[in-house]
């Protein structure tokens, strides 16, 4: 099990119908305890790469496996934390309801979640330190609390891989610290991939960094010094 990569992309090329190639011949492996940061310029393909891993986009060439299967077939086990949550805050829903939504699947009928799903939801609340919020209305939470709850929602479905899009955008330094501690704890048993603009954060806290700019190059995170970044911005941008 531990030798099997959490995700593998080989020879992946993707283009949107209206534009040129966003990603070209991308090879990438996410290891089973990986903590990988996707960095690179805007429009370089970071979010596209994330959406391919989620199975929301199909590459024109190449193959993608996540947890040993096609992304579409394991979607329920990929925990995803979007940058801008599309949750409608006017809908009356308690934190527990929001987290339970992570357990919902096309085979869910009837008004109630099963005992297993409730237990999984409480476990996820526990892992993110949000059990005290379970009965609060989601719309009444602060930004930092909401983000933890969204991570809990992503974990609730027994996630085997956690994907986060810009998790520290708009978060103050104190909360960023807390969030990284949380992610480090989760990383003890889960591979994590996150998209970030913050290269310092990636280089000082993550295990590996992938420079995404049409092609993908991986580095041990520590090697991602400002000088290296500088050269990549100017050198690899053709």
């Amino acid at each position, binding site marked *: 099990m531990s030798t099997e990569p959490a995700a593998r992309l080989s020879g992946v090329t993707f283009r949107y119908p209206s534009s040129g190639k966003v990603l070209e011949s991308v090879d990438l492996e996410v290891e089973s305890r990986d903590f990988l940061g996707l960095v690179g310029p805007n429009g370089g393909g970071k979010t596209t790469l994330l959406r391919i891993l989620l199975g929301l986009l199909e590459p024109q060439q190449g193959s993608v496996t996540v947890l040993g299967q096609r992304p579409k077939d394991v979607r329920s086990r990929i925990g995803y934390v979007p940058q801008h949550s599309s949750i409608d805050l006017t809908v009356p829903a*308690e934190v527990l*309801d929001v987290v339970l*939504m992570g357990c*919902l699947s096309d085979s869910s009928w009837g008004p109630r*979640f099963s005992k297993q799903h409730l237990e999984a939801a409480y476990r996820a609340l526990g892992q993110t330190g949000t059990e005290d919020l379970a*009965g609060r209305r989601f719309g009444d939470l602060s930004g930092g609390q909401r983000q933890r709850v969204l991570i809990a929602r992503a974990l609730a479905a027994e996630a085997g891989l956690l994907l986060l899009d810009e998790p520290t955008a708009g978060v103050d330094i104190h909360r960023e610290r807390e969030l990284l501690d949380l992610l480090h704890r989760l990383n003890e048993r889960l591979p994590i991939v996150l998209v970030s603009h913050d290269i310092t954060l990636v280089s000082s806290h993550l295990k590996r960094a992938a420079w995404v700019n049409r092609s993908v190059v991986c580095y041990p995170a520590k090697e991602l010094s400002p000088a290296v970044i500088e050269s990549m911005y100017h050198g690899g941008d053709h």
Partner: protein
Amino acid sequence: MGFFQDFGTNPFLLTGLLAGLLASVACGAMGPYVITRRIVFLAGAIAHIAIGGVGAAIFLATRFPAGFAGVSPMQGATVVAVVAAIVLAVLHQRAGERLDTIVGALWAIGMAIGLLLIKLTPGYHTELMSYLFGNIAFVGWNYIYWMVALDLVIIVVAVLWHRRFLALCLDEEQAQLQGIPVLTTEIVLLVLVALTVIVLTQVVGLILVIALLTLPAAAVAQRVTRMASLIWYSIALSAILTTVPRIVVYGTRISPEAAIVLVAGVVYLMALLPAKRRKDDGAKNPAA
């Protein structure tokens, strides 16, 4: 009070009360989804397009009694409303920015066809008047049976689909990610809204149907933390609103339909005042 003295002798008082309670179940169950999904105007479109069904039923039953003698305006309205709901659900998912305009056109066309067909049918039609303005004072048992059937369909489907509806209202993108068929869910939701509109029309009429569908749920929405509680409170509030005002105005010149909606509106406005303050508190949070 006159209402209770006449209760034994006037059978329509019983059917009127039942109609109000049956309508409360439907609007209490669906109103919360309609307001949180922000599809009030689609519900309005369905109600008006359905007048095409009323017209078609009257026209066919009069002109072609051999095949359509038993077709009631309410049945005609139901069929057309369901078809309209399916079309509108697809448009809501696919039409994007042009949605308003297309829905406006369908709204007008449906009504025009209905009025045209009624004009082509000889005779004065009380059915049309009761569709437009409701007729809670004179509901026949045949309508009660039809309303019971529609209510049963609404309850069974709403219970089965509850979590999917909630997922759709709460976070459509996430629902899609988790493999929930969003378009199908939207179609099912709007078909139930269509059936609700038909049930409510019998009580307060087309003109006021949106009021009864949205006001009870909207009055409670800010004060509960869960969708399921919102549904239960909406049903209870609707039951009070469709019952008490019409008993109070019984024997006066005030129409019961107008009394129901007027009181519902006042209750909503009263509920809005303190809830607004709470919302302002929340707005201090920059992420809100």
